[in-house]
């Protein structure tokens, strides 16, 4: 076991691909990569964010975090279940966002390390405080993208 995640950062393109595939297959949504400056500008217009965290353990240990605006999550919820676009409570929304993060993380690890077994933790999802945004947490190799024209960010961190 190792806590070094540095090698994993080189697979950020695969991580972006995992986001695209999960969005297309589970949400019927489009993903577009964004340059850092434009992404930061888009994030400035968002108010409330949800952030999901999935831990992974294997040859490398770490966490993958995924942040998206709360109302985007609401839209995704309807697409995920193929139902009407009705307001849902926090519990089902958090469950769905956690499952999306889980699918992105699992898909990314499977493609990056097909010959290794990784165990994922149950996703932890939180509504972030007012004024919070993901930009300050994103390194050079984080995934900055839009999901149906709204910002979504994915980044990796060492296991705490």
């Amino acid at each position, binding site marked *: 076991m190792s806590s070094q995640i540095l090698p994993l950062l080189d697979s950020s393109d695969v991580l972006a691909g995992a986001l695209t595939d*999960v969005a297309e297959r589970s949400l019927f949504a489009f993903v577009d990569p964004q340059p850092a400056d434009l992404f930061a500008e888009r994030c400035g217009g968002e108010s409330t964010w949800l952030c999901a965290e999935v831990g992974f353990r294997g040859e490398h240990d770490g966490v993958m975090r995924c942040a998206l605006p709360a109302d985007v999550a609401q839209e995704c919820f309807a697409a995920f279940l193929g139902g009407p676009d009705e307001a849902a409570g926090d519990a089902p929304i958090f*469950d769905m966002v956690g*499952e999306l993060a889980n699918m992105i993380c*699992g*898909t990314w*690890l499977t493609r990056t390390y*097909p*010959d290794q*077994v*990784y165990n994922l933790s149950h996703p932890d999802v939180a509504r972030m405080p007012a004024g919070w945004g993901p930009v300050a947490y994103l390194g050079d190799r984080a995934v900055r993208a839009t999901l149906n024209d709204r910002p979504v960010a994915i980044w990796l961190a060492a296991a705490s």
Partner: protein
Amino acid sequence: MPDTSVAGAVRPLSILIVDDSAMMRAMIKRVAGLADVPIGAVYEAANGAEAIQVLETQTIHALFTDINMPVMTGTELLREIERRGQWPDLVRVIISTDGSAARREEVSDLHVKCYVEKPFRPEVMRDVLTDLTAAGQ
């Protein structure tokens, strides 16, 4: 395979969906309902331990299980089913984000009929259910 046919008529499949995400269980249930196969009772469990309780009390033809779950993982569930030997005809399908060769090898001796990677397109689930039904006739 479960006995899904009686005098040419296809008996509805009774299925058990095991996933720690209620939304994923709902999604799988919905997709199963869209497939053009007769689905009978649909049971749900949030982990392997709950799934064992359902198996002990209900007649289940097909089990669809995730791998990474708290309390009892999908792999542990499949091992427990093997150890008990009480459900030899139970069709076992894995639905997981982990599609690695290493994971597939890990479950290769656990009589898994099909391995579906999440995220999956609805038609993949439909094809799996169609194959299960056809194989049972």
